């Protein structure tokens, strides 16, 4: 086995264990921290697949912005201890069984599918910023601009929603 294989299994192990911790831990803050570990493991996967730009953007957007937002909201709502009503055991078992069935179905479907396509001309630097920028600003220029409008709308919406209601 080559070193990158070991790195793959290590990152996979970390991602799955911390993802399970997100779901199973009672404390919301620990949940957020586990999710950050999962995101770093996924970013490691991106670097392993030579998608440097996406790896950096993933760390910046998810670990840097989104999870800080989550932590901030948990701080503001003061949800540091368990805050949930307990569900009955039957519901837990049903949820675990249905999630397990979902996983078995997906893995079974993928195992039967033959996706060993002919590789195209092996271009190992598709993940670099230069290649990605050329595609982004030629083929996908309109979606890129629309994404900026979407982000502006989301910003305005978030400010409007979190503002205190003005009594008239």
């Amino acid at each position, binding site marked *: 086995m*080559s070193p990158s294989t070991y790195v793959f299994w290590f990152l996979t192990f970390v991602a799955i264990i911390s993802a399970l911790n997100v779901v199973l831990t009672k404390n919301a803050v620990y949940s957020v921290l586990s999710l950050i570990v999962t995101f770093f493991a996924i970013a490691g*996967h991106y670097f392993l697949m030579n998608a440097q730009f996406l790896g950096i953007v993933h760390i910046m957007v998810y670990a840097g912005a*989104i999870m800080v937002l989550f932590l901030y909201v948990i701080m503001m709502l003061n949800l540091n201890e368990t805050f*949930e009503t307990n569900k009955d055991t039957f519901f837990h078992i049903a949820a675990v069984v249905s*999630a397990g069935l*979902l996983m078995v179905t997906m893995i079974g479907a993928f195992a039967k599918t033959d996706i060993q396509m002919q590789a195209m001309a092996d271009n190992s630097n598709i993940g670099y910023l230069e290649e990605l920028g050329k595609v982004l600003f030629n083929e996908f220029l309109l979606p890129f601009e629309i994404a900026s409008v979407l*982000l502006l709308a989301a910003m305005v919406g978030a400010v409007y929603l979190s503002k205190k209601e003005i009594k008239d």
Partner: protein
Amino acid sequence: MEIIPGITINHYLIVSSILFSIGALGVMIRRNAIIMFMCIELMLNAVNLLLVAFSKQWSDTSAQVLVFFIMAVAAAEVAVGLAILMMIYRNARTTDTEVLNKLKW
């Protein structure tokens, strides 16, 4: 066709399926709306991981651009969603979905 030495696309399919199922499990099993939201992020990331693996397999940049757009949409979604959660908390004093059952039939 190996994506990285010793690892094929099938490995990534299985890893993404597991991560997606854990996210789905979280949405079903948890009652705290913030945690459910985080599990949705986890499911989005499982799909992103698979998209990058396929882009590597086919040497195609478009999938990575799609991942980039998914990240932008996820950021917008989280900003608005957390603002809505703050508003719900301000009005109902809870983010527990068991209590917020006015729309349940």
